[in-house]
């Protein structure tokens, strides 16, 4: 089927048999919710669509539905995610395996509808797993996997599937939409644990005194850590059934004998792969790690892959306003005792077009650092005016 990535995500929600879908429209996510309501209307999806009056209510409904023991899906973007903030922190500790797509879009002012990762990255501490995809097929496949991972008995945490706004959400490409029977073999029926029962009332999310809260937080941390192996297993089993493999926590591209590499999220990786191929053709040993999961952050796995690099660069589509971006900070911490130098690279902010040339400029800096040259530690690529 030649469809947008948004439509692909909607197909995944349908195939996964999501039973409740609360929604509120926001560009560039809207196609997902529209498509789902069409599926429901056409009898192709047996789900309750609940239009809410705000995203805060959307997440509240999702929390309620999931607590009631039904498979729950929703989608949002940007300010929508921001308005959900409070309820995001209710979903994870209650161990509700909600799956939500987030169409990455610049949040707040400078007002824009275009891609930036400053909506989802700032909520990476909300207790949700976060995965970032590169293409339409992966958007569908990862939404399917998200249900598997979220509902795994070892995990039971909500999962956010992030896809670049417009660049991906509105791009049509050929997407293989699997048969439902095939998906049923991959995603077993939802087996709710401790769901609300009218016959056996209980208080959900009560006041938790300090005597309990710490242990509950530690449980969350253990579940997040456990998700690493669950993610890897889901990738394997998905590949066995559908013939498509994404690498789990991250995808390595031409890393076998790489001497320098970049690490980044989302559609940027397409241009980066092209840039790596060009550099390789020139005999320069460039590699790429397309980070997929930011939570859990694959610190150990990245250290194993990157410890022998002469230099590593991070690609950022979101600022931290402390001189570096969030991925740099995370990766620097992961590589702390390896001595591998890291440079930070901003690009595509507010949806600015990223070309292969832009990415090559990033790699040039990393390569120079790999040769031991002194370079700027953080570069804003394409910035007009002199960077200070």
């Amino acid at each position, binding site marked *: 089927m*030649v469809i947008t990535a948004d439509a692909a995500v909607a197909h995944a929600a349908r195939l996964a048999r999501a039973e409740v879908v609360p929604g509120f429209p926001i560009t560039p996510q809207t196609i997902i919710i529209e498509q789902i309501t069409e599926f429901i209307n056409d009898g192709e999806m047996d789900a309750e669509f609940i239009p809410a009056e705000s995203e805060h209510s959307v997440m509240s409904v999702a929390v309620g539905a999931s607590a009631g023991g039904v498979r729950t899906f929703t989608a949002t973007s940007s300010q929508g995610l921001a308005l959900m903030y409070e309820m995001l922190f209710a979903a994870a500790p209650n161990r509700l395996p909600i799956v939500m797509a987030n169409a990455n879009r610049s949040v707040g002012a400078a007002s824009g509808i275009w891609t930036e990762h400053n909506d989802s990255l700032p909520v990476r501490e909300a207790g949700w797993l976060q995965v970032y995809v590169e293409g339409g097929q992966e958007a569908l496949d990862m939404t399917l996997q998200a249900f598997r991972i979220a509902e795994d008995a070892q995990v039971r945490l909500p999962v956010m599937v992030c896809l670049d706004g417009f660049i991906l959400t509105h791009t049509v490409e050929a997407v293989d939409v699997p048969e439902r029977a095939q998906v049923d073999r991959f995603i077993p029926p939802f087996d709710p644990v401790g769901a609300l029962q009218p016959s056996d009332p209980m208080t959900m999310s009560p006041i938790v005194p300090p005597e309990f809260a710490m242990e509950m937080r530690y449980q969350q941390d253990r579940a997040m850590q456990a998700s690493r192996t669950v993610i890897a297993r889901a990738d394997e089993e998905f590949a066995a059934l559908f013939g498509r493999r994404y690498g789990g926590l991250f995808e390595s591209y031409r890393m076998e004998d790489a001497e320098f590499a970049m690490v980044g999220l989302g559609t940027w990786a397409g*241009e980066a792969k092209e840039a790596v191929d060009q550099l390789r053709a020139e005999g320069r040993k460039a590699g790429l790690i397309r980070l997929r999961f930011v939570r859990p952050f694959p610190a150990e796995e990245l250290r194993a892959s990157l410890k022998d690099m002469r230099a590593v660069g991070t690609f950022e589509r979101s600022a931290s306003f402390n001189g570096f971006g969030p991925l740099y900070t995370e990766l620097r911490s992961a590589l702390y005792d390896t001595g591998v130098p890291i440079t930070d690279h901003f690009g595509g902010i507010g949806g600015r077009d990223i070309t292969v040339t832009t990415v090559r400029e990033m790699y040039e800096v990393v390569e120079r650092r790999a040769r031991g040259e002194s370079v700027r530690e953080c570069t804003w690529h394409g910035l007009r005016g002199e960077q200070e």
Partner: protein
Amino acid sequence: MYEVRFHGRGGQGAVMAAQTFADAAVRAGHHAQAFPYFGAERRGAPVQAFARIDSRKIRLHSQVSEPDLIVVLDASLFELEPVTEGLRKGGRLAVNTPMRPEELEIGEGAEALTAVADATAIALETLKVPIVNTAMLGVMCRVQDLVPIDAITEAVQERFGGKLGALAGTANALSARRAYDVAAVGTARGRQRFARAKEWRPAWNEIPAGTSLPSSSVEGVEIGPGSARTNLTGEWRWSSPFYKKEKCIRCLRCWWSCPDAAIDRLDDDYMRWNFDYCKGCGICADICPVDAIDMIKGVHRWE
């Protein structure tokens, strides 16, 4: 890799054209993608869409800056934006115009083998509305051979039929076929360079702090901070509010309700329309309790 850029105005269906072209390309056995670039999401505003075709899976997501084919759904855009910019050597054009290719002025000293048809007339005839995307899909088949017209009409039938009903699918497929049949092919040239507002692209430290700009600081941007100074969106209008001052009771409802702040409240509480920005939405006429505003078809200005 074969790359296409579509130039149109909001409402002409440039995005659907690009998507349908990609769909048809997949039917013809290629890998393909298509995506829009949205600026102001409004009827009449210039929009761009892109398509790529390749023999292997397409990884790129960047916009198309060096197209093999440029499709122009509205010939008035040649004067508004650098439509032919980046056209690859030997690249082609497809233009919606009643003129012959040789008569066209494509600007910027460009020269390209060009297919033309009066897509607006064809759309009016087959669809009864001036939505030219499917006709232009037919026209472009005269200057590219990766995607045959049969794949186009098949994709049109399915995409438009699925969305708007089988009848609309058939009418749109007919629109594409007819345009393909009547399109003329020849060489179009750009004899002149169009004078355009200078692009204002300040360095980061030349922009005042914040995200808004005082009007004094702007030289001319299409979209973004300060763009209203040069981007006179009133040209998107197709009907215009006629104010019957003698009937006005000065309730100010129109003034409150105008979504574009294109109504000025005068000292005596009567109104004056700013036709540079009025897009003719008709909300003022609709909300007026005493019928003091008439919407008149066409782009008019009254003092």
